[in-house]
């Protein structure tokens, strides 16, 4: 049954993106060159966006690509280039160890965690009506109607998120901004 599920159209899509996500995830963990690791992370984000699509979360898949893979990763790449880390001396001595750790943790720890956590959990499948309700919930309209509904708890958190971003902006300005009177600062 599970094999059948995987060999269906949706199943193949899941299989493809899952393998891509794990493979790129491992690369993020083992690659020495920060630039390459960052690019692997971009691939990982794209794969996960693909999985979002398979879960009918269209809007979030788009956000994932635009915000995460687009804006955030560009920021990462920008910082890596700014600090000239692309050519950081590549000490490869730990590479083999790190690969082993990455693989074993991914399969071992992750597998163990899921084996323990999912023990006794029934194999939940999608309810028959979920196709209908689910598809509208993932659209921009569906998200907006839930997020901005004052009778649901999300609006309050959403408003506070704006203050979170304000804090982040202040922080970025304070930390990375130009220093005042650097001559009088004590090193």
């Amino acid at each position, binding site marked *: 049954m599970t094999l059948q599920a995987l060999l*269906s159209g*949706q*199943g193949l899509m*899941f299989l493809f993106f*899952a393998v891509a*996500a*794990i493979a790129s*995830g491992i690369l*993020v*963990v083992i690659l020495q060159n*920060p630039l390459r*690791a960052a690019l692997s*992370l971009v691939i990982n*984000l794209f794969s*996960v966006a693909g*999985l979002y699509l*398979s*879960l009918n*979360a269209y*809007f*979030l898949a788009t*956000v*994932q690509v635009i915000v*995460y893979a687009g804006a955030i990763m560009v*920021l*990462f790449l920008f*910082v890596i280039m*700014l*600090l000239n*880390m692309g050519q*950081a*001396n590549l000490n490869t001595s*730990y590479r083999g160890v790190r690969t082993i*750790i*990455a693989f074993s*943790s*991914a399969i071992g*720890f*992750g*597998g163990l965690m*899921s084996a323990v*956590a999912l023990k006794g*959990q029934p194999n*939940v*499948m999608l309810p028959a009506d*979920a196709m209908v309700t*689910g598809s509208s*919930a*993932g659209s921009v309209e569906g*998200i907006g109607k*839930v997020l901005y509904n004052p009778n649901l708890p999300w609006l309050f958190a959403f408003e506070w*998120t704006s203050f*979170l*971003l304000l*804090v982040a902006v202040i*922080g*970025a300005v*304070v*930390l*990375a901004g130009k220093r005042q009177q650097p001559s009088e600062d004590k090193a």
Partner: protein
Amino acid sequence: MSIPLNYYIVLSMILFSLGIAGVTTRRNPILIFMSIELMLNAVNLSLIAFGRYLGDAGGQMLTIFVMAVAAAEVSVGLGILIAIFRTKDNVDVDVLNGLKG
């Protein structure tokens, strides 16, 4: 025929563990940070999968907040890292070793 929920959860846990492995083995702050992004990504995947199989919008809502938080953390985190690299003038690994005892 659809994919069982557990597949998504297992995948998300594997990605999460990969992130943990990265955080614990990496020594360059930026690479540690990227591993953390990997972990957040795994969280989002599980949230959306849970939400989809529960027919509940909450998972996607939570995901939106996680993304906002990730963005905020990135701006502050990279700010801190730029500042420290400026002061230390050292782009090599393992720069965070001044405070001990």
